[in-house]
């Protein structure tokens, strides 16, 4: 095989893997939008908050330590040296469920039947408030997140593919980050679990009913509030998974909340109401931006296509298919 072809395959594979990381964030958006019609601007901050909380539990950090010490003149920083990963993840999940409950009680309950734009604005407020609370609770330092997921280039793949190129050619084997492979496996498990949950459980069917028609669901006795808490809690769980993956890659820090911006083009491409759309959209964006950066990036003096090319793709889709690949068709009745 020619080195060019191998490099092309490597770029596509890495694009797909990056796309999975984007899809992890986009999934949380889709779930909430399907169930409540709310575009949750705070989803990126959810991922950040979950990752901060997980590291906080892992390292025994006292929440709000700085505030407590300032107010009471104490000097508390850590409760314990470390906590097993499994326990820390469980506690983080409980925290995210509690957060969903608090959001429903304090925000959503009071905004039922408001216009979508009002709900959207509320989630913008929520994003900034939650970022501030996260800062107060856990501090702004870069935190190292290690839950035992391996990372780094796959030596196996490199060695297995080095012989594919013609002998004597300048080829070093194919590169894939093991962390991204794990992210793909976890995303697949997550999507299958979500599909099984929504198809085969009573609560899942209630969730789908609410997604299809709020009024009809209410009329058959489904509690809208319970479903909202549930769906926000599931989104919180997905945010935790996304936070773990992204946080392992770059350390947990406040720029993590900006990964939500990576999910926007994914949603535009895949549609706001489709779980498969979030996955396919993520993969397309991932591959598109990597190919653009590597193969046409050199023609742009400013470069750095990787960051904005996704939005060019999204814009093109908006012009020709505004509902996205798998989104519900937009029908305007006159």
């Amino acid at each position, binding site marked *: 095989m020619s080195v060019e072809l191998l490099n092309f395959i490597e770029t596509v594979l890495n694009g797909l893997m*990056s796309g999975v990381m984007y899809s992890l964030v986009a999934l949380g958006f889709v779930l909430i939008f399907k169930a409540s019609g709310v575009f949750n601007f705070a989803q990126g901050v959810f991922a950040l908050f979950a990752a901060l909380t997980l590291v906080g539990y892992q390292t025994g950090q006292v929440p709000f330590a700085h505030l407590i010490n300032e107010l009471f003149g104490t000097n508390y920083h850590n409760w314990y040296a470390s906590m097993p990963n499994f326990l820390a993840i469980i506690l983080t999940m409980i925290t995210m469920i509690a957060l969903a409950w608090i959001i429903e009680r304090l925000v959503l309950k009071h905004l039922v039947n408001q216009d979508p734009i009002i709900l959207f604005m509320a989630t913008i407020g929520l994003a900034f408030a939650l970022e501030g609370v996260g800062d107060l609770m856990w501090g702004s330092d870069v935190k190292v997140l290690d839950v035992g997921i391996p990372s780094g280039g796959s030596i196996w793949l490199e060695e297995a593919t080095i012989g594919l190129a013609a002998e004597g050619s300048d080829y070093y084997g194919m590169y894939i980050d093991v962390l991204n492979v794990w992210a793909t496996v976890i995303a697949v498990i997550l999507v299958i679990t979500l599909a099984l949950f929504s198809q085969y459980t009573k609560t899942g069917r209630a969730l789908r009913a609410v997604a299809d028609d709020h009024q009809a669901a209410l009329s058959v006795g489904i509690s809208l509030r319970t479903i909202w808490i549930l769906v926000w809690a599931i989104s919180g769980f997905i945010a935790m998974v996304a936070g773990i993956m992204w946080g392992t890659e770059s*350390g947990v820090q406040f720029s993590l909340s900006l990964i939500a911006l990576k999910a926007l083009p994914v949603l535009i491409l895949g549609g706001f109401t489709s779980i498969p759309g979030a996955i396919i959209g993520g993969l397309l964006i991932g591959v598109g931006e990597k190919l653009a*950066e590597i193969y046409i990036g050199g023609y742009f003096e400013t470069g750095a296509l*990787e960051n904005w090319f996704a939005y060019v793709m999204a814009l093109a889709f908006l012009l020709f298919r505004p509902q996205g690949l798998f989104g519900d068709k937009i029908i305007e009745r006159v």
Partner: protein
Amino acid sequence: MRIKQLLIGITASVIAISSYVEIAVADLKFPMLVYRTGAYAPNGIPNADGFVDYYKMINARDGGIGGEKILHPECETGYKTQVGVECYEKNKKDAMVFQPMSTGITYQLIPKATADGVTVYSTGYGRTSAANGKVFKWIFNAPATYWDGATHMIRHIRKENFGNIKGKKVALIYHNSAYGKEPIRTLQEAAKKHGFKLSLLPVDHPGQEQKATWLKIRKSRPDYIFMWGWGVMNQVAIKSASSIKFPMDKFIGIWWSGSENDVLPAGQGAHGYKALTFNAPGANYQVHKDIKKYVFAKGEQSGDGSHFGTVLYNRGLFQAMVQVEAAVVAQKIHGTSKITPAMYRDGMEAVDLSAERMAELGFKDFAPPFKNSCENHGGSGLAAVQQWDAKAKKWSLITEYMYGDKSITEKLIAEDSAKYAAEQKIAERCN
């Protein structure tokens, strides 16, 4: 009766206001543009803490500068240029000096501060040609500029290659902003002079996703990578370099890409990574002891004190020390403790931080000596290379402090500042 009460009220108000004005004028105002929130907060916080702890120590230990207390109001910029300009406008009255902590903000403040008569001190960042004091009267960027930094990197790799880097491949990975683009011109000149091949790899803000960039690097196999990064860009780049098994001792960051925050997330993978610095790491200097005694002991440290002695905290100490020293010099020159912003500028221009003076200030062997002058606002240009030991989790200096390659930088500074002078119709001074 009412008129009497009104008169008493007005008189009392006038007295109160005039006494306030007296206090405000007597104190020395050093406004701080900080970023304790947002994507760059992990870098902004330790740096700001260093400033605040130093100012508090000077106020507690010496009773201020020449008896005048230091006021250090903070304004949060979030590393956003527009917000930084607003912070400047809000705080410029009676301000001695602004430290923008962002090259983007510095570029915006240069014409404004020049018109307002306010000193801007961009320590080792900002517009490189501001080192030319003949054109940039109010702007200072000592002790070293980005162009010095670029030539330090070249000097270091030339030393590793016995003086010959002809044909070597060097990649510059940079923050796609005014800051990151600053060394390009110098590196292009250096590439012509030394015959190495330079490739440019921009990374957009914030730099969380760089996979395609590192695939490019992996394919092109550069001999060295230089980095002008900030915030999460540094952490992702160092982790990515480790992931593609790029030799870390061939990866060199500028002094803003060499803090503990940048290397810790990569764990053992960051071992051997190098970065430039113009101040030493560690917490065993006299200034640290004084801060412990006069600030920490009273529980008055900035934040939780956890950044004490880190690279960016120490950088903040160094920056604050230079700013305070400029006020001391200004007081001596003008024979008054109640200096004005214009007097402060004179002090900054006459700063002479010799090794002896730094030792007196508690900074013995903490940084190389430097001196400003009317012509030179860029200091000595001295910087060293530090290397990260991932096992011991500490930075160590691995070279002496080196001078930049003035044969490249002086010509470029002259060209760029002449262009600015022509645009702004500034007549050269110091003649």
